[in-house]
């Protein structure tokens, strides 16, 4: 019996060690001892592997999503119920009052209580407080917050000056409009009028910037504020403000890989690398030719329609029915959009042998520049993104051409 207990304790200890090692909760010396034993003991290795397998099986548990109204209903519920703490404390002594007196008091005070309660909920609730707080914050930090995203993409003023020496940016800066960063001395009343005149989307965007700003580490927040202050006080503030906006616009339309590359590079060779990307863009002619675009678009239509069932399997019934009722062109467009989204979840969607052959056939028909680009981009998803971006660009240009002012049509 004693042996059994001893053996059970040993087994518990053994399992605890495996578990703690797996969780990275061992002290350094204990870990070294365990690893040395692990290298010698095949059974131990096997048990660790089983533990890993079982633990990763837990990944298959569904990740719960709160209902769409959960956030709003929680905030509303809190707005209504949170002030009740002081109220409930105050209600303690009320229980000692005789019933008739309570009724009398209630009758006398009902009007006042009702009024006060409504005021308490509407004035003190987070919902209305939120609106007041938000406007006050926006008033105080509006200019910085409007350009917060751009500040995040840049390192410091010297970097902007370096960028300004690249022709590509300098030429665009000359024609860029005033970004408004330098309006820091403008009248507070004007600011207030401007902010109250914003629609909720604009206000939300600014407030979202504010929340994102608060999530940054202290030193990063300080850097951005200092950057902003240094920029508005510098002698060449006007040019720097414009270059900031022009650079941010250019950066955002880069391939994600290039964006990462730029972000990770030390400042010393960042400008050089940016110059390289610009030159490469000019030489390789990244602008998609009309012919290539049509080939690629046809291929995508084809892939999306042939994978229709697979793609629509991920879609809710209402949406699926709506898509199935569309005409062929609109349907394939919707399917391509869904294809991109679900490929992240199921990357092998296009990887059967038939799809691969079709893809190779399509790729061989494209121009040399396109083929180079296809080889350069690592994933099919990014290739599709490229086509979609190009399609969007063409459609945008077409729309711009097609739009006639009402005055033009009346003249015609």
């Amino acid at each position: 019996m004693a042996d059994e207990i001893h053996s059970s304790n040993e087994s518990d200890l053994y399992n605890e060690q495996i578990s703690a090692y797996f969780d990275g909760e061992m002290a350094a010396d204990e870990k070294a001892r365990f690893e040395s034993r692990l290298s010698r003991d095949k059974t131990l290795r096997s048990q660790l592997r089983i533990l890993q397998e079982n633990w990763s099986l837990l990944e298959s548990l569904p990740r719960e999503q709160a209902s769409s109204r959960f956030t709003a209903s929680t905030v509303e519920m809190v707005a209504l119920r949170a002030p009740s703490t002081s109220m409930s404390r105050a209600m303690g002594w009320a229980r000692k009052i005789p019933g008739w007196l309570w009724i009398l008091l209630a009758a006398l005070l009902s009007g006042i209580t009702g009024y006060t309660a409504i005021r308490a909920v509407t004035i003190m609730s987070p919902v209305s407080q939120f609106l007041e707080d938000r406007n006050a914050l926006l008033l105080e930090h509006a200019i910085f917050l409007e350009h917060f995203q751009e500040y995040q993409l840049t390192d410091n003023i010297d970097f902007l000056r370096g960028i300004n020496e690249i022709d590509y940016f300098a030429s665009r800066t000359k024609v860029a409009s005033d970004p408004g960063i330098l309006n820091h001395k403008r009248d507070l009343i004007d600011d207030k009028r401007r902010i109250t005149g914003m629609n909720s989307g604009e206000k939300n965007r600014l407030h979202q910037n504010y929340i994102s700003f608060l999530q940054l580490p202290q030193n990063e927040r300080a850097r951005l504020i200092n950057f902003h202050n240094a920029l508005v006080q510098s002698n060449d503030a006007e040019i720097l403000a414009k270059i900031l906006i022009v650079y941010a616009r250019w950066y955002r339309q880069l391939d994600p890989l290039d964006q990462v590359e730029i972000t990770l590079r030390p400042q010393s060779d960042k400008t050089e690398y940016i110059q390289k990307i610009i030159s490469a863009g000019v030489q390789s002619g990244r602008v998609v030719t009309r012919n290539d675009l049509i080939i690629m678009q046809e291929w995508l239509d084809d892939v999306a329609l042939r994978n229709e069932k697979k793609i629509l399997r991920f879609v809710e019934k209402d949406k699926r029915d709506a898509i199935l009722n569309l005409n062929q062109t609109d349907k394939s467009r919707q399917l391509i959009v869904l294809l991109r989204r679900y490929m992240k979840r199921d990357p092998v969607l296009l990887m059967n042998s038939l799809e691969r052959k079709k893809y190779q056939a399509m790729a061989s028909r494209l121009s040399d520049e396109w083929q180079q680009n296809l080889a350069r981009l690592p994933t099919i998803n990014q290739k599709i993104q490229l086509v979609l971006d190009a399609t969007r660009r063409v459609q945008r240009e077409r729309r711009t051409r097609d739009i006639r002012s009402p005055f033009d049509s009346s003249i015609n």
Partner: protein
Amino acid sequence: MSVSKTSPKDYVEEDADVRLMLLVQKGDANAFEELVSRYQNRLIGVLEHLVGKRDLAEDLAQEVFLRVYRARSGYQPQAKFSTWLFTIANNLASNARRSLARRREVHIDRRGSEGLSGDPLEQMALAASGLMPNRQLDNVEACLMVQQAIQGLNDRQRMAVLLAKFEDMSYADIAEVMQISPKAVKSLLSRARCTLRETLASYVRSGKQPRVNL
């Protein structure tokens, strides 16, 4: 999962959610909304595993956020925000389970998996009918097996497993949430894993449904 001693000042510096909570303390309701939005899914996920009912889990999650809001004036960043939040959630879930037990409610976990809905038994029937695509079938099966295996753990083991797996908490943090010692957490997790290994062994080897004592 490393154990580290952190001062309140460090928590403010290291934990963005603590900074949000400090804004809530100053009356910024938007920061509160942001916290709700960040934690709602995680909280509901853990609570649903603990109490076994989706609607009750949502109610409890709201109650957790209400308590967070009510506690804002006295809030001191003595731990990571998530640790504090799940401590409240753990206490509320324990009370709810006790109350359910008093009412002698016996539940069978009837959650659907992601992208699938309805009764797990119906899903199994559908799976068995061959009408479901293979990949989906594998996912449904694995999900059901694991759900049942998790339900086979005792309440404390289940909580420790959920916090370790889905919240990536250290033993020290789990200990704080569950108000036990880190050594006890180590033991809880180890036993939970042994139980999971035994329950899932038959499934992993042969694909058979595990036997679970509900």
